[in-house]
């Protein structure tokens, strides 16, 4: 049963692409600067945070500009993917009540949209790498794997919450606050290294914090993540993905009646 629907979704992957392209078209065509915003957004955010954290808080993180930008880009992806994903079912209520297609496609395509946007933003990051004449260590090669994990985590959360959000629309409001808080308790603007060990461990329960930490270490400092962090993060990510998938499956028909 499960593998049947997964293969059904895979067969309809061109529909995922169509939805994702439509989202991007709507986003970029309706703004004056279009795709340039994708480059400006992380840059502006970076500018603000950089000024504050180098002047006011005196960050001592090595290669801080790159550290900060990488964190912003990855966090923005996670926040966008889940926020759009959670709203994806309600956002297309019309078509869901019109015609049948595997509804999982909607939250997944929202995450793909965010993934494409992150791809564009990584252009900014690599421009920074060149400008700062930074030579990335070989361990940067695990970055795609980490981004894949982050993507799976986003899909899992989106599946889980998008279907519940139909009945309990409070979820999307609460999620905004969770994302706001999450930004500050994840290693985006600061490093966890200077934290007391207990606090550090506590914050690393969050799988996104784990992924960000691993990304920073592998891209900037040439350190590969420990096996236990990898195992923990992979376990939590796929646990959430499976939970999200089955929750979605279980409630998807009830959800349509609530729309």
């Amino acid at each position: 049963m499960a593998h049947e629907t997964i293969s059904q979704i895979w067969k309809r992957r061109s529909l995922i692409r169509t939805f994702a392209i439509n989202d991007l078209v709507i986003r970029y065509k309706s703004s004056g600067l279009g795709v340039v915003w994708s480059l400006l957004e992380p840059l502006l955010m970076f500018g603000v945070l950089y000024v504050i954290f180098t002047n006011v808080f005196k960050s001592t993180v090595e290669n801080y500009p790159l550290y900060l930008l990488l964190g912003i880009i990855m966090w923005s992806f996670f926040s966008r993917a889940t926020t759009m994903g959670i709203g994806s079912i309600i956002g297309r209520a019309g078509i869901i009540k019109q015609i049948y297609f595997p509804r999982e496609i909607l939250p997944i395509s929202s995450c793909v949209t965010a993934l494409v946007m992150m791809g564009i933003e990584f252009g900014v990051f690599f421009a920074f790498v060149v400008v700062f004449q930074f030579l990335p260590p070989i361990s940067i090669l695990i970055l795609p794997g980490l981004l894949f994990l982050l993507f799976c985590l986003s899909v899992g959360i989106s599946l889980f919450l998008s279907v519940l959000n139909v009945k309990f629309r409070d979820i999307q409001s609460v999620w905004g606050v969770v994302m706001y808080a999450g930004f500050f308790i994840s290693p985006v603007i600061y490093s966890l290294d200077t934290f007391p060990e207990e606090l550090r461990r506590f914050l690393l329960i969050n799988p996104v914090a784990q992924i960000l930490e691993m990304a920073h270490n592998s891209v900037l400092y040439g350190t590969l993540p420990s096996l236990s962090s990898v195992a923990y993060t992979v376990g939590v990510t796929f646990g959430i993905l499976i939970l999200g998938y089955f929750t979605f499956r279980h409630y998807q028909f009830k959800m349509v009646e609530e729309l």
Partner: protein
Amino acid sequence: MSDNAIEVRSLCKTFKIDYNKSVSHTAEELNDKRYSSDKIEVLNDISFEVKKGEMFGIVGRNGIGKTTLLRIIAGIYKPDSGTVKVDGSLIPLLSLGTGFDIELDAKDNIIMYGKILGFSDKEIQQKILEILRFAELEKFANVKLKKFSTGMVMRLAFTTAMQIDPDIILVDEILGVGDVAFQKKSYDAFMSFRQKKKTIVYVSQDVNSINTLCNRAMLLNKGRIESIGSPSKVVNDYLGIFEKPKESIK
């Protein structure tokens, strides 16, 4: 399956209703067995079949479950019990245009719709021009749907579905879309669809069109099939519901 396009067997569907949030009921409704404390039995043990090439009409009062039945046949809702078998590709035309994205232009909407219905890029590209031409919207291919009039959106939706050429369509009170010229055109499209031996399930309040267009018809009332068979008989039974004094409805 052989010559049945749709087979519905012992179908039941109940909706939960939160009465605190919804309107209160009339005495008639409260006496009606379908309404229990917080549920409405919309469909109760419905069985029928639609033959291939048939135009099958469904009539019944508002809120009696006609659209729900179409949604179950289309796989949008799941029945509580019972089965539905569909043989062939099926397009539901439930409320025209609501599946479209008004932020996208006509062309992108056609592509999206075609994709949802399972067509490849190539197949859709071949049909786009034809669809725009038939809908008389060639000039508006790159105009966002939010700039369209209601009639234009409906024309586009109807044409997209018809040009995609499924084996079965489910039509929910949507004929008479667009202006007079387009009505004629869509009526012809409908007829040629029928001539191609395709199956149409047609829900309408317009008893005249049920009488003249359909091969067979069915009257839904109080969750059950009250009559099924020749359109003229079913339409008579339907009109009879409104004439009966209220006490005898039960």
